[in-house]
């Protein structure tokens, strides 16, 4: 009897649990919390702490009684944290995203609010410009305020290039020669840390754009059913990647090294590696980590090979750090006001002073490297957005994995293309 009663109790609890768990997930999660009149919470990427902090300080000084609680995360942690946090009571009021498929996801899930009115009253069309704002519009509605612009380049050490006696390569074939010369001289030609996979995907997107032409990847972004990863040009891009690997272009074990903990940057700063393929935030990193190295740095865009559909003056990149406001109950005025501080001219100037390229008009780029970056982007014949930002998450994961396998020679260009195509078909359904 004793067991019997205990058994009844347990099965009762279990039944209750089952009934509770029988509900569809999400059906009862409309409670996303409300804005706090005295506090604004902010989540952002930790590569912009100085830039964000000065805006918060000015906001707090101008808004008595309101404090800002800002948390900065490293790249991979941030993506997970944001994904899980949004749509719950733990969601931040204000946060950054990279746009693309992610932003569309937030809109579909009804997690962020339109910022058209804020843009209107703050005059963002004049300061930020219609083009940049349009990139954050979905069906005519503005969902995020873009602040920084990023592009990736091949950075090189002028000291090592002079010492070894090589010139900036004008063609892909020259690049392969330069790699051979640098390797023979005892240097790692190109520093790379690809454990987190996106550094490899930046290479891939640039090489694909060279192989397939600048309009090609737009098809996959738009979800065009005719788009096919098995296209010979994607396979050729894979072969070009493996051509670099075969030329011993990279430091040993690069697929196991971590960019976030600086394992590729160190090789570049300390003169072990002669080149580093990276976004222009590398300038900001150099200012912070190896200020004496900044003068030795210069960059070039990845050169095209003979017969490539793209040209050497194309640029791959994206608009980093766009501010969105989470949808909550109550008055979002403070959150929107903070976004205004985070997107104004002073923030743009701080960004420029810290080695970043603001999309905001007005700030002066005193650093000659940054001026050159800005000019290169302005005169580029085409601008390809980084696919790891604009593709849907499942396809992105497969693309990152396959590109890492291409670099590790764990797959063939044909097999990698087929795997991406399979993921594209599956995730489009």
């Amino acid at each position, binding site marked *: 009897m004793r067991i019997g009663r205990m058994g009844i109790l347990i099965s009762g609890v279990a039944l209750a*649990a089952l009934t509770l*768990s029988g509900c569809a997930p999400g*059906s009862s*999660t409309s409670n996303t919390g409300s804005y706090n009149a005295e506090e604004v919470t902010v989540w952002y990427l930790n590569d912009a702490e100085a830039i964000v902090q000065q805006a918060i300080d000015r906001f707090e000084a101008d808004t008595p009684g309101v404090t800002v609680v800002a948390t900065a995360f490293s790249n991979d942690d941030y993506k997970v944290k944001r994904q*899980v946090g949004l749509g719950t009571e733990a969601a931040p009021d204000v946060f950054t995203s990279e746009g693309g498929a992610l932003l569309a996801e937030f809109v579909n899930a009804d997690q962020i609010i339109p910022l058209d009115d804020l843009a209107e009253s703050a005059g963002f069309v004049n300061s930020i410009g219609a083009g940049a704002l349009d990139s954050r519009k979905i069906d005519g509605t503005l969902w995020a305020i873009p602040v920084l612009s990023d592009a990736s380049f091949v950075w090189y050490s002028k000291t090592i290039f002079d010492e070894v006696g090589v010139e900036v390569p004008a063609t892909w074939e020259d690049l392969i020669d330069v790699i051979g010369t640098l390797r023979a001289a005892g240097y790692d030609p190109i520093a790379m840390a690809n454990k987190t996979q996106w550094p490899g995907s930046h290479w891939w997107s640039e090489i694909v754009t060279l192989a397939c032409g600048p309009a090609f990847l737009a098809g996959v972004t738009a979800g065009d059913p005719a788009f096919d990863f098995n296209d010979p040009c994607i396979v050729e891009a894979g072969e070009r990647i493996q051509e670099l690997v075969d030329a011993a272009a990279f430091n*040993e*074990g690069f697929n196991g090294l971590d960019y976030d903990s600086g394992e590729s940057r160190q090789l570049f700063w300390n003169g072990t590696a002669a080149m580093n393929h990276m976004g222009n935030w590398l300038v900001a990193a150099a200012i912070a980590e190896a200020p004496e190295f900044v003068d030795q740095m210069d960059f070039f865009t990845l050169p095209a090979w003979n017969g490539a559909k793209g040209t050497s003056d194309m640029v791959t990149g994206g608009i980093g750090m766009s501010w969105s406001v989470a949808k909550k109950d109550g008055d979002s005025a403070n959150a929107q006001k903070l976004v205004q501080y985070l997107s104004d001219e002073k923030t743009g100037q701080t960004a420029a002073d810290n080695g970043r390229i603001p999309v905001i008009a007005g700030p002066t780029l005193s650093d000659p490297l940054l001026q050159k970056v800005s000019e290169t982007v302005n005169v580029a014949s085409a601008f390809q957005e980084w696919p790891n930002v604009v593709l849907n998450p499942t396809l992105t994961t497969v693309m990152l*994995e396959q590109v890492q396998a291409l670099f590790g020679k*764990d797959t063939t260009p044909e097999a990698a293309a087929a795997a991406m195509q399979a993921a594209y078909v599956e995730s489009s359904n």
Partner: protein
Amino acid sequence: MNPLSTVERTFGPENMSSRGRKPSTISAPNRTRHRRPVPIWIVGLAFMAPALLVYGVFLIYPLFQSVSYSFFDWGGPGREATNVGFENFARVFRDPVFYRALLNNAVVVAVSIFIQLPVGLVLAVVITSRLRVKRFFRAVYFLPTLMSTVAVGILWGFIYNPSYGIINVVLRALGLDFLAQGWLGQSSTALAAVMVTTVWTYAPFYMIIYSAAISSLPGDLYEAASIDGANKLQQFFRLTVPMLRPTIITTSVLALIGSIKFFDLIFVMTKGGPSGSTELLATYVFKQGFTNQQFGYASALAVVMLAIALVATSIVLVRTSMGERTPRKSVT
């Protein structure tokens, strides 16, 4: 103070209807007071309540939740969910990455049972021997288990670093440059490299369990064995190992379950890469859920993982308990 009197106060007859069944009750310690007794299951439940609550909220409830999520196509909190029936499970068995992760998990299981446990046992024999410095060795051997696994992962990341890691530096100093390589960065060596770290980290844990068991073994048996001329090696295989059988079974089950749900070191050291060569079931669940935002599919994977752990554990338990019974039957 007698704990029972507290129970009596809390669950006294004025609060609880007691039917007064003798076998199911605890009577007050002082029989002369003739207090009406509290049913034992209430007392039991009361003592278990805090733990049960934690267990229920953080284990039982999420378990049922996870099972229910596995039937949905769901992008995470706040998103619409659609019921897809068993489609998520069908997808698990179509997914090549699942099989790759399963295979890698099998390697982890094999390494923990056939390398980690024996290493733990040997270390235990060393620290329970009559060595003078055994206290020193015990402290040194146990150190890895005291460290947080994230710290261990980062530390071994430095050790394996291709340019300044101690392994490659030593190899190069010995003139063995051709052996120096990017241990964690190539699919041929990454899993083996992480496995070395797991043995380093977890073998000492089993060492402690084995050494406790060894010190409780009867010493006269060893004396008798050495009088009969058995050397140390014979004593180890003929006495120590057979007598440790129950402990070895327990540790095998622990190692088995631990290996099936293994996550932290892999996540810190390789993130499942390169090229999926160290992908495990648990890292794949994480990737599908938190990176790909496929919480329904991730739940289905987790349910399959749980089923595998349950089946594997029951096989070990049933087979070993059968082995225990057989000799007894022959005696009776």
